[in-house]
């Protein structure tokens, strides 16, 4: 019985012009967007290679200690091939990092703009796969089901169906199942075709693990699609005229997809402000001054002095204290980002995009890892230079500054990408939010449909 209903619904969909347009649009959009983003990735790789060559040229030379102390060393994370699926925070992560070693502070600096920034994309969002699913597919899904119940009522066919011995819940399940099948199959197909064709536009070099991530992304996209189908069904069973249902659906979509995600970040900015860099710098300087005041002995004429051992101790303390201030600020920043993310979970589109980012290695978790790896590099790099310097001073004395050092042996940026397990753990709350939203919407649809007056 259930199958008969599903087949009937499916047949109705497939023969509908609206469905054919939706499928065509999905296929064309998904494939062309994936290809476009793959080209974008190829250009990014090219730019990254060129810059990496330059950085390498600097790093492969020998420098004297004094030269190293006023040089800056550049590092840059290679672009993420799965950025084609979800670009997410990739632009923030692709900024080059420059390290400067100075005696009193060692601060990673983030320089310049991300590679190949498209100015127009500051106006409009990057059309990656996740964007197409989040915005376009959800829109099509609602357009697809808004009249599933109330339309049949208007046509009079609903009375006909319900007059035969079919339980109502079965009818609704069949409607949902058929709509899901009808939309999911072309979506999954076009994702597969798009990502499969991407190597034509650029060598993405996706391995089995990456394909697994693409598969998980597709599953997530289907979950997201299911949510919008349920929501559309719910609206359709709550209203009695397709025109009303359509309007409600569109406003719901505007709210969930366009308004709420942006609102989340802006509210987070207000609720959890992070102090400006200038403030942090000022606090760090004040702290350093305080430590120096405590440690050094004042001498006549306004100068300060200390024994060598004291001097080293003071330096260590200042380093520790300032680093602590930096870390506290970073933690606050992360807290703000997490709040923004949690607020955005009210919108399925934002939850989906965040989860997709985690799966593609361009999400909040990856960004955190990247920032931490830059921190680690900074520690290791300055630590290594200091160690070499101390050794040289011990053995060569004042000649040390002119001793050559192989910069190639100094530490490099390690590309930290969360493992699949971590990515899954990070994406899980979003997936749960999507499932919960789905269940809620479907239950609403069910209750409304059971009480529906088909006359």
């Amino acid at each position, binding site marked *: 019985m259930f199958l008969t209903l599903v087949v009937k619904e499916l047949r109705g969909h497939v023969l509908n012009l609206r469905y054919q347009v939706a499928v065509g649009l999905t296929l064309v959009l998904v494939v062309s967007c994936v290809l476009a983003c793959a080209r974008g990735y190829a250009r990014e790789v090219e730019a990254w290679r060129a810059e990496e060559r330059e950085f390498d040229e600097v790093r492969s030379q020998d420098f004297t200690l004094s030269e190293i102390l006023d040089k800056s060393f550049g590092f840059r994370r290679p672009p993420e091939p799965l950025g084609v699926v979800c670009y997410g925070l990739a632009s923030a992560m692709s*900024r080059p990092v420059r390290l400067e070693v100075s005696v009193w502070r060692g601060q990673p600096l*983030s320089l310049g703009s991300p590679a190949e920034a498209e100015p*127009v994309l500051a106006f409009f969002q990057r059309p990656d796969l996740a964007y197409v699913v989040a915005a*376009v597919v959800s829109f099509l899904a609602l357009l697809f089901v808004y009249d599933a119940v109330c339309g049949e009522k208007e046509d009079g066919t609903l009375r006909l169906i319900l007059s035969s011995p079919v339980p109502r819940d079965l009818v609704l399940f069949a409607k949902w199942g058929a709509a899901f099948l009808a939309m999911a199959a072309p979506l999954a197909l076009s994702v597969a075709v798009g990502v499969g064709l991407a190597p034509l536009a650029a060598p993405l070099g996706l391995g089995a693990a990456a394909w697994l991530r693409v598969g998980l992304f597709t599953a997530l996209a289907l979950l997201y699609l299911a949510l919008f189908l349920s929501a559309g069904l719910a609206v359709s069973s709550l209203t009695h005229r397709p025109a009303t249902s359509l309007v409600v659906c569109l*406003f719901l979509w505007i709210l969930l997809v366009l308004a709420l995600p942006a609102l*989340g970040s802006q509210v987070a900015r207000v609720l959890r402000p992070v102090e*400006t860099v200038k403030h942090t710098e000022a606090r760090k300087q004040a702290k350093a001054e305080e430590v120096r005041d405590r440690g050094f002995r004042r001498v006549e004429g306004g100068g300060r002095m200390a024994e060598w051992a004291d001097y080293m101790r003071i330096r260590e303390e200042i380093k520790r204290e300032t680093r602590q201030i930096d870390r506290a600020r970073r933690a606050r920043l992360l807290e703000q980002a997490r709040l923004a993310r949690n607020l955005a979970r009210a919108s399925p589109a934002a939850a989906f995009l965040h989860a997709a980012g985690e799966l593609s290695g361009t999400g909040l978790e990856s960004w955190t890892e990247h920032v931490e790896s*830059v921190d680690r590099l900074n520690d290791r790099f300055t630590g290594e230079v200091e160690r070499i310097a101390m050794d040289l001073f011990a053995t060569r004395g004042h000649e040390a500054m002119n001793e050559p050092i192989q910069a190639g042996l100094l530490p490099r940026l390690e590309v930290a990408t969360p493992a699949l397990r971590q990515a899954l753990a990070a994406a899980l709350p979003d997936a749960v939010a999507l499932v919960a939203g789905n269940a809620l919407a479907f239950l609403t649809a069910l209750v409304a449909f059971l009480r529906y007056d088909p006359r």
Partner: protein
Amino acid sequence: MILAIARKEFAEALHRSRFVIGAVATFALVLGGVLLQVDDFARRRARSDENRIAAERMREEAEDPREAARDATAERPLAPLRVLVTGVERGAPETVRVGPGLTSMASGAMDTNPVLDLFPPLDLAYLVGVVGSLMVFVFAYDAVSGEREEGTLQLVFSYPVGRASFLAGKALGGMASVASPFVAAFLAAALVLEASPEVPLGAVERASLAVLGVVCLLFVAVCYGLGLSVSCLCRRSATSIAALGGVWVLVALVLPNLSPFVARAIYSAPSENADESVAARVRERHRAAFNAERRERRRAIREGTLSQEEAIAWRRKRHAEVQEAMEAEVAAATGPGRARRRSLSALTLNLCRLSPVAVFEFAVARLAQTGLAHEVRLQEALEAHRRELRRALWDDVPASGLPRFEMALEPFPARLAGALPEVLILAVEAVLCFLVARVGFLRMDLL
């Protein structure tokens, strides 16, 4: 007659539930968005002022002008109307490092939160351009096809009413009803701007704001015209809403976003980084040659064949020459690349202009001074400022006398002239849409 129809249409629209929901939603979103953006603006302004004071203090304290120049920063001019149109600046830091050797640089370390810029901000430009266009389509899709389905159209034409005047009345009334929530929301936003002391509004900004409102209305007219013409061309309102939905997806969600990629696929340009490294190599060569010459002079001074004063005079003169030759060569080496990049970006913009939403966003960004033209102007001004800094260093200017970066926003006529092509495109599109609606309606089968 036309007026009577318009009045009827207007009154009818006001009673529709979708109109009420849409109007309330528009008003609430615009107002909420403006309030949040005002807050953001105040923060930016505070940060910018703070950084300016800190930079000033740094100059006073610096002993070596070289050191001061290396840490020199410049403040982006803060356009007050960015509260309504964030434009391309979105998450860009307000402070830019301009020290010699650095191209452009975020003010500090990794200190901005990228998560906050993951989604477009809810400013007026987005709310009218993307959200508003969809709402207008929802208001307009059944203006004619709905009446035809209900049979009221036949009833109307049983009276002595001309088709053309009926459509004119309908368009007038419909346009008035569709525009009213936007007008109300815009006025509320303008009032908020006037009332908030953090956002300084001068005469130029007020004039731009007024024109911005007109452009919003024009854009709403384009959308309404499009909706009306589709409604006249389709026999059933279900078809017309599906068609409009498809058009909207393309125009608002896809076309502008894809255009940079499409433009690159059909036209190629060398990347800025590639040119940058070519320029760096040229500069390195000139610098090395100049340093070799300097070493020679130094030796001459040591040997006593050259006096100190002569050497300084030579250094000044020669450096200026070298600088000029170097910049000329850099310009020659990177010129073609820059020209190609410029054509590429023009192509991208023109592809974007296929979408009225993009045309609208460009126009309002130009008026608000947050658009691409402003960004280009800013980058050029920064480049000029860097050159000035280098020259000042060479002239041994003390740290406190180093040039400061100031950039004024464009005067009103320039903004208007810049936005004019976009406004004209919108006007032509609006007229075209209404013409299509008219032709479609005149040929329409009432049965």
